[in-house]
């Protein structure tokens, strides 16, 4: 355990913390993780913490979040909480393979293996990297290392644990795998989590990631996930983000798809102080499909930034992105989406849409959808709108005796529903619909059924 001292620049503070605790970091951790640390901290030290001078962070300044003093768990701190007491799953009807992570560490009480098909590995990254390094060898940090985001490098330098999942060839996991990330600490907390998912050819899996803060102290949560999708495999990843207003989350996900594979990913940001979602999809084989959805609701002074990059490196692939934001109070939202079609990636279809509703005069939305096209036989489009609830639609409902407030709620629900209906897990879809309705009514600022009043 270390407390970072103040005064020196924020980036330098982290670098010197790294230098001081190099041994602690390496201790108990596999060589696969340890060998990446030095290079990564150097890259982080060079680039520093991004602010709006960095084109990729034009609309999100991370510096204020890093100004606070945080406690980092460099080694596992056990016996934290009784999970059952503080936390009940907010999707109760859903039958899942459930695992918990606490502050980025895989919770030791998890018994995930029980009902999983044979050969599937689900467990702690730290543990599996030590026990079966051959599984990770060709995958870990293969995509993240290519990123020029210094926050990803920071993650690589400090990463010790997270979840690891391996689905062997042709195996179909029927029940969704639910991963619940809990953040809980009495002090300000900086948590680093590193995840890796390998879906071998022909396999299928649905992963649901739920993030929650169970504390009222400030939190900085830095996660990096790498997902490898083999030939013909189908992977769904849903992320539900629910943090309190003092939190900062930088969630970077890298997907690499082989030919004929399918990816569906959705990020639903219900609540959070500052949320930055980085998403990169690379098509390294032909006939891949990726559907990427995002939905966020913000109020107070919250900020949500979705930053996506779709790399069409192979021909005949399809990508489709829909991002929607509803912004209230003084909240701000940003969307930056980039589609890059490489020179020989002919017959590419790439679509991108960003729709936003501003509910207050102090809310702001900034969006920059981008197309970089170097092939000619392509169909690419992007669209972005910023506006309000359609007055005519509102009139239509009011003319039928529906009160203005209800009518507005209905329309906002309908706006959000386009994204929600893409969720392929039915009970989850219903639950999210309900959560969103409550969120819009202002009835909950914390998750349904959760005993912890973390939403304040």
């Amino acid at each position, binding site marked *: 355990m270390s407390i970072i001292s103040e005064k020196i620049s924020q980036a330098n503070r982290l670098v010197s913390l790294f230098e001081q605790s190099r041994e602690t970091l390496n201790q108990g951790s596999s060589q696969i993780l340890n060998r990446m640390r030095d290079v990564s901290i150097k890259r982080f030290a060079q680039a520093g913490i991004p602010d709006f001078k960095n*084109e990729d962070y034009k609309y999100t300044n991370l510096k204020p979040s890093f100004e606070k003093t945080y406690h980092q768990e460099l080694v596992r701190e056990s016996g934290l909480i009784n999970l059952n007491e503080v936390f009940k799953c907010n999707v109760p009807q859903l039958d899942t393979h459930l695992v918990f992570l606490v502050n980025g560490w895989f919770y030791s009480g998890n018994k995930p293996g029980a009902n999983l098909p044979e050969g599937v590995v689900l467990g702690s990254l730290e543990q599996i990297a030590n026990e079966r390094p051959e599984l990770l060898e060709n995958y870990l940090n293969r995509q993240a290392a290519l990123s020029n985001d210094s926050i990803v490098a920071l993650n690589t330098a400090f990463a010790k644990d997270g979840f690891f999942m391996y689905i062997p060839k042709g195996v179909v996991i029927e029940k969704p795998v639910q991963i619940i990330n809990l953040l809980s600490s009495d002090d300000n907390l900086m948590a680093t989590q590193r995840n890796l998912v390998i879906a071998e050819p022909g396999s299928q899996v649905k992963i649901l990631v739920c993030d929650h803060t169970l504390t009222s102290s400030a939190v900085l949560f830095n996660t990096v996930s790498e997902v490898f999708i083999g030939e013909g495999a189908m992977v769904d990843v849903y992320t539900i983000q629910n943090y309190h207003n003092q939190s900062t989350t930088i969630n970077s996900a890298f997907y690499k798809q082989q030919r004929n594979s399918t990816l569906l990913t959705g990020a639903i940001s219900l609540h959070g102080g500052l949320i930055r979602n980085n998403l990169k999809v690379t098509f390294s084989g032909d006939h891949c499909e990726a559907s990427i959805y995002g939905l966020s609701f913000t109020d107070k002074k919250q900020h949500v930034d979705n930053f996506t990059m779709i790399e069409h490196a192979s021909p005949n692939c399809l990508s489709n992105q829909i991002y929607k934001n509803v912004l209230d109070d003084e909240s701000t939202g940003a969307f930056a989406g980039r589609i890059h079609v490489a*020179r*020989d990636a*002919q017959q590419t279809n790439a679509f991108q849409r960003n729709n*936003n509703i*501003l*509910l*207050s*005069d*102090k*809310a*702001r*939305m*900034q*969006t*920059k*959808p*981008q*197309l*970089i*096209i*170097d*092939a*000619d*036989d*392509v*169909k*690419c*489009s*992007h*669209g*972005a*709108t*910023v*506006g*309000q609830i359609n007055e005519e639609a509102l009139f239509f409902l009011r003319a039928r005796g529906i009160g203005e407030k209800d009518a507005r709620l209905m329309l906002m629900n309908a706006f959000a529903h386009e994204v929600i209906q893409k969720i392929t897990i039915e009970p989850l879809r219903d639950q999210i619909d309900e959560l969103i309705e409550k969120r819009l009514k202002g009835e909950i600022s914390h998750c349904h059924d959760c005993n912890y009043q973390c939403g304040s």
Partner: protein
Amino acid sequence: MEDQDKLLNDITTQEYQYGFVTDIETDVIPKGLSEDVVRLISFKKKEPEFMLEFRLKAYREWLKMKSPEWAHLRIPPIDFQETIYYAAPKTSPKYQSLDEVDPDLLETFKKLGIPVEEQKHLAGVAVDVVMDSVSVTTTFKKVLAEKGIIFCSFSEALIEHPELVRKYIGMSVPPTDNFFAALNSAVFSDGSFCYIPKGVRCPMELSTYFRINTAGTGQFERTLIVAEDDSYVSYLEGCTAPMRDENQLHAAVVEIIAMDRAEVKYSTVQNWYPGDKNGVGGIYNFVTKRGICRGESSKISWTQVETGSAITWKYPSCVLIGDNSVGEFNSVALTNHHQQADTGTKMIHIGKNTKSTIVSKGISAGKSDNAYRGLVKVMPGATNARNYSQCDSLLLGSTCGAHTFPYIEVGNKSSIVEHEATTSKIGEDQIFYCNQRGISTEDAIGMIVNGYAREVLNKLPMEFAVEAQKLLAISLEGSVG
């Protein structure tokens, strides 16, 4: 398919048709840039004191600036000491009629297909010809003077109307706005000045031709258009440069100021030398154009057809300050061979009920890169602002690139902003449809490209639309017929 490939090949190997050098004696100062050069230019032009101060301030700021690198362009390093900053035709007399004009010069314009005398007859266009920086002839001045309209070269304006220039210069593009605007502010040689008094509707379209002639000359012209309350003017600008092997620098500034209920329409056809098909030579075109709608219900519209230049870096913008003001941007940008274009617009909504429309059509062929870059910014006070943007890209051939980089920033709840972009190639079904009706593949491509650009071409004044269509034809459909 074979036909189409042959056709694309023909199109993409077409050479520049306007390459010739007019042999006119010019007055050239030694190349290189320093504070002395700035003073020398100012001195040679007999400028008032405030202008020299303006230039020096810009020069000193420029020294601290760096060439911008954010654009999607590969710009070879430019040696600013290798450029000649002032070149004026040596015998710069003021002609009273066209007959006195150097026949070589007239020949030049004939080759361009826009002979001055013909234009004079054609539609009553007054042409203020800028040939290597100094205005050589100004026509129709009397007709304009009767209405109180001032339309003259920048140097003349500095001598005859210094108070107007002083009041408005730098109002929409401050001398320290960006690297190239600062450079222009320091060394600009000439340009046009246009002042439309209150309530006057300019009876004819004002027009200027810019042309780079002397080898190794940078062209730094500056245009200032002021439209007072309730006035209207339509301004045309055309550019052509003869063939040169070394890259030439062109850094222009255009400022427009529109007061209450004034309307300014600015149309450009840009056809600088794009370099040959191996990417050798060509003009570097770094232009800052900005209009301010200061008054309520004022309107500024930019229409451009960009077919030339090795590198284009140009963002004609509108700052909508007055309530109910309107900004428009219509653009066709065509790149071929190794040309690179990064062009677009900025619409800054500050006043209430402001409106803006952006229509951008990019066409890429050969090994070129064509990017649209735009910003739509709605300030919190700009309630009920409305923007609609449409950016289409058409790709001809598999070695070119088309890119779109829009930025949208909305700061209040009553505004509506829409952006739409598509990228595609000419559909085989479209060509098939035409073939089936007896239209050859060549004609079909010609029709489709022209139809694609028509939405913008229609916004051009008639005389210009003809030329623009011809330029598109030369750049693309020349061999199509």
